[in-house]
């Protein structure tokens, strides 16, 4: 009885921890230096770029050599009633401008507004005789000379015009959240995205001739997310809705065939991405049945639909009389997801985590028989479409044991099972086991070692009627193949002194497809990283890092089933390093220096048994140095000097030196690997108010 009473009292004491009663009537907050009214900072001034490169301009928005205007800043308002307003801006004078605004009444309501532009350029050295201007029709110049190979296109050189392949993404976001009476909270966000410009598109007539041309991009996407949440002491629940609508102004693109047509293929046409709609309802809940157990669960259902009217089988008039089985796809795909997790502290040392997740992609698109005209030239036998569906279930368990000596042990297991329709393998099952030891000697050192192994078993592999040609019977597609995967991770964080700390990590991953004869055979990844931080003095520090990565993989194939096989090996190597200095040099002068270097090398070797040498290295060398000095002349005024130099060298044997006519069967856009060296200066006046 006494014990029971004591436990009850202790429980009550514990429960009262969050219900303390303190007389704070005398807490006047005289030293609370609240800002009142408007305040902020504005950076404005000229910038200068000493050269122009579309690769440098990519996402950055500095497209031209010369002077530009740089405008950044933020502005705020706060008052005693809790009304607030925040405005953040970046690069308003450039094509990569960003603006974010929010305001409201603390704890009651908030509205949000944001606008961003993201420019993307892919046209490094690209030129084309094709022209497209706001339509879905791409045309050649009137005096074009048709030929069987690119070498015979005598009007090519004179008709080439630069093509920047620019796509600009504009995002407009607006949102609202408010807290209703009681424990309810509501929020809604709407995002409108526009994506406009031109992209490279390539297609042709079988393997005989193909052309690359600029195709129009005119997408718009509207998305809505809404959430209603209820919170109380023991449980929280959220009901959400997401919906989006994707619209493509152009259902197709047609182009003039620049080659001497084979058959009636003077004009060709391809479909573009169809508009579609998506919605999803979801419910998430978190429940705490006791202080030591937490349950969370989530469920959602959704649907994606697509019903854009088909274009005809072919633009080739020879096939005008072919009838489609339906006017549109009436595509519909249901998605459902279910997840649940439990975390439990079984004792002061031992914790248990259990989770399950289920995802279903149920493609309910009707199956019909179509009579494709392959590449606008050859009629193929009737072929059914294959709306793929899959179900995925995952279960995992983890134990975590923390000792009193700062040594922690973690171990777990996970099972992931896929069930697919219409594919070579109906079922795959991945089983994973892992263990981890970590040692945490407070601030001096932390060590973590983790190993993991997993095996994938599959149901019988079978040939399915893929559209196209019959696969080699020995082919095992890597995501449907038996696989053994081993992974290891080593991490060491050291505080070598009060001023110097270091973090070292190494990870390795090995995939083996031992039962595959044709397909991906093995894949390895290694990565080493070292980070160093050094505090020179208060508010002034140095940092440095180096990362080395290797990705190796090997595939095997054969030209036909009884032929001797060939192999191909791909090796990608990355060396990244950098250093920086940041902090205060004096009370009035801040400095920030950053330098980084990233070198990539890709080596591919295909070995058909004749001891062929590897392809030339794919290489990319990026160097960037940035210096920023901020001088505070007075409480209100300051000056910033920014200098950025970036050097980029790359080479790619797949495109370099080809020009537009380097492949006799393909008229390309003639891209080249980007190389540039650009320096940008900005001199900004800072006004603080």
């Amino acid at each position, binding site marked *: 009885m006494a014990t029971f009473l004591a436990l009850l009292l202790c429980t009550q004491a514990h429960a009262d921890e969050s219900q303390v009663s303190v007389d704070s009537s005398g807490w006047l907050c005289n030293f609370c*230096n609240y800002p009142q009214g408007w305040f902020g900072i504005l950076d404005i001034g000229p910038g200068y770029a000493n050269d122009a490169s579309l690769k440098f301009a990519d996402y950055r928005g500095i497209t031209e050599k010369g002077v530009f205007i740089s405008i950044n800043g933020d502005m705020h308002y706060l008052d005693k009633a809790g009304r607030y307003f925040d405005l953040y801006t970046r690069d308003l004078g450039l094509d990569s401008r960003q603006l974010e605004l929010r305001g409201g009444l*603390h704890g009651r309501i908030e509205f949000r507004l944001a606008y961003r532009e993201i420019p993307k350029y892919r046209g490094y050295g690209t030129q084309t005789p094709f022209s497209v201007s706001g339509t879905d029709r791409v045309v050649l110049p009137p005096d074009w000379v048709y030929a069987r190979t690119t070498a015979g296109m005598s009007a090519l050189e004179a008709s080439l015009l630069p093509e920047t392949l620019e796509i600009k993404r504009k995002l407009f976001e607006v949102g609202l959240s408010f807290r209703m009476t009681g424990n309810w909270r509501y929020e809604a966000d709407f995002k409108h995205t526009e994506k406009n410009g031109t992209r490279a598109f390539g297609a042709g007539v079988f*393997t005989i001739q193909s052309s690359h041309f600029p195709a129009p991009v005119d997408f718009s996407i509207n998305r809505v997310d809404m959430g209603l949440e209820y*919170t109380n002491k023991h449980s929280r629940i959220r009901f959400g809705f997401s919906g989006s609508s994707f619209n493509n102004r152009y259902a197709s693109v047609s182009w003039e065939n620049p080659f001497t047509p084979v058959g009636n293929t003077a004009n060709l046409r391809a479909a573009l991405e169809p508009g579609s709609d998506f919605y999803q309802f979801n419910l998430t809940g978190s429940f705490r049945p006791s202080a030591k157990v937490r349950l969370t669960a989530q469920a959602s259902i959704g649907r994606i639909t697509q019903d854009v009217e088909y*274009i005809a089988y072919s633009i080739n008039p020879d096939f005008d009389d072919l009838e489609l089985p339906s006017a549109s796809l009436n595509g519909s795909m249901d998605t459902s997801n279910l997840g649940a*997790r439990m975390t439990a502290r079984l004792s002061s040392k031992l914790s248990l985590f259990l989770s399950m997740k289920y995802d279903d992609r149920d493609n309910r698109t009707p199956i019909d028989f*179509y009579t494709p005209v392959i590449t606008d030239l050859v009629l193929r036998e009737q072929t059914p479409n294959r709306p793929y569906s899959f179900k995925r279930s995952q279960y995992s368990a983890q134990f975590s044991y923390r000792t009193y000596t700062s040594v922690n042990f973690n171990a777990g297991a996970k099972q992931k099972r896929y069930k697919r329709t219409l594919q070579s393998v109906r079922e795959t099952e991945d089983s994973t086991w892992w263990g981890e030891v970590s040692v945490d000697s407070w601030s001096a050192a932390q060590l973590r070692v983790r190993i993991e192994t997993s095996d994938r078993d599959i149901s019988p592999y079978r040939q399915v009627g893929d559209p196209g040609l019959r696969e080699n019977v020995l082919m095992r597609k890597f995501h449907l193949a038996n696989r053994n995967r081993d992974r290891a991770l080593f991490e060491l964080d050291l505080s070598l002194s009060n001023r110097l700390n270091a973090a070292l990590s190494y990870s390795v991953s090995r995939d083996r497809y031992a039962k595959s004869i044709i397909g991906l055979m093995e894949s390895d990844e290694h990565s080493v990283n070292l980070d160093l931080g050094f505090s020179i003095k208060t508010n002034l520090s140095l940092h440095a*890092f180096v990362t080395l990565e290797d990705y190796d993989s090997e595939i095997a194939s054969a030209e036909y089933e009884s032929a001797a096989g060939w192999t191909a090996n791909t090796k990608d190597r*990355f060396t990244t390093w950098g250093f920086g200095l940041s902090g205060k040099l004096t009370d009035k002068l801040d400095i920030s220096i950053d330098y980084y270097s990233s070198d990539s090398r890709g080596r591919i070797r295909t070995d058909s048994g004749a001891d062929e040498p590897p392809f030339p290295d794919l290489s990319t060398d990026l160097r960037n140095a940035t210096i920023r000095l901020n001088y505070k002349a007075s409480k209100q005024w300051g000056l910033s000097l920014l200098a950025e130099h970036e050097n980029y060298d790359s080479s790619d044997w797949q495109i370099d030196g080809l020009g537009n006519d380097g492949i006799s069967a393909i008229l390309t856009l003639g891209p080249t690997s980007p190389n540039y060296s650009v320096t940008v200066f900005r001199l900004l006046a800072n006004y603080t108010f």
Partner: protein
Amino acid sequence: MIILILLLIISSGLQAQDYSEQGADSCMPCHYEGQPKSAAAIFFTKHASSTDPRAPFSQLQCETCHGPGQDHVFGQQRSLDVLPVNIFGQQSKTPIETQNRICLNCHETKGRLAWFGSRHQVENVACASCHQVHVARDRVFDSLEQQKVCFDCHPKRRSDTLKASSHPLRLGNMSCSDCHDPHNGANEFLLQELTVNETCYTCHTEKQGPYLWEHAPAAENCSLCHRPHGSNHPALLKKRPPLLCQQCHSPEGHPSTAYTSEQTGNSFSNRFMLGRACLNCHSQVHGSNHPSGATLHR
């Protein structure tokens, strides 16, 4: 009865810590602007709101989160190293579970509803490892600063952003949290959406289909062909076509031919290996809605 008395003593001892006599006015004389442990910038933030009844400063001010501070105040006045009850950070001696519970008391909303059981929770990551409270604007809300926070523990991702093909993180047009919700354990890889593909479709909506002619791996998981964090190959591909395609496609004819370095000058073979390789003709690799697009040419 003896046990009862002992437990009552222990229980009363648990409540021995006292709150300060003047609240924030006990703290701010030491933690004013310019000091190494300045907390002055908190007054620029919602945490210091005096009108939101849920905000710490509408309750017990600094001690709402840091706990009773009388001993700390008295200790500092006597040059004794007595710390507040709750100190936040990965290296703090305040248990991370306790720290995070204090934050989640108010912030267990949206993706944080699924914090428990998430990778970061299981790995015992403190909220304060990533978030700053005593600053005017938490740096994780700035796209350029946020990635530095993530790279502290995920340095390989820093290297990824500098590769030949990568999402535009290094220039601040994107942030890690555009794709990942670091609190949300309900979604795989702490993604913002339930699956990899749903996350990709938020920006690349044009790829979501459903198409008349689907490419099965594209419909299942974008990361079967793409490395979303960075790659040496265009469009974040795991490897170059034709090899990328040949690891799954092997019919007799051009798909299964060994394209070697000695064939780049061969006018027939080079159409399958130079330029965009397989994509020179099969440009609709994500799927096609063309009635004749069965082979993804159209």
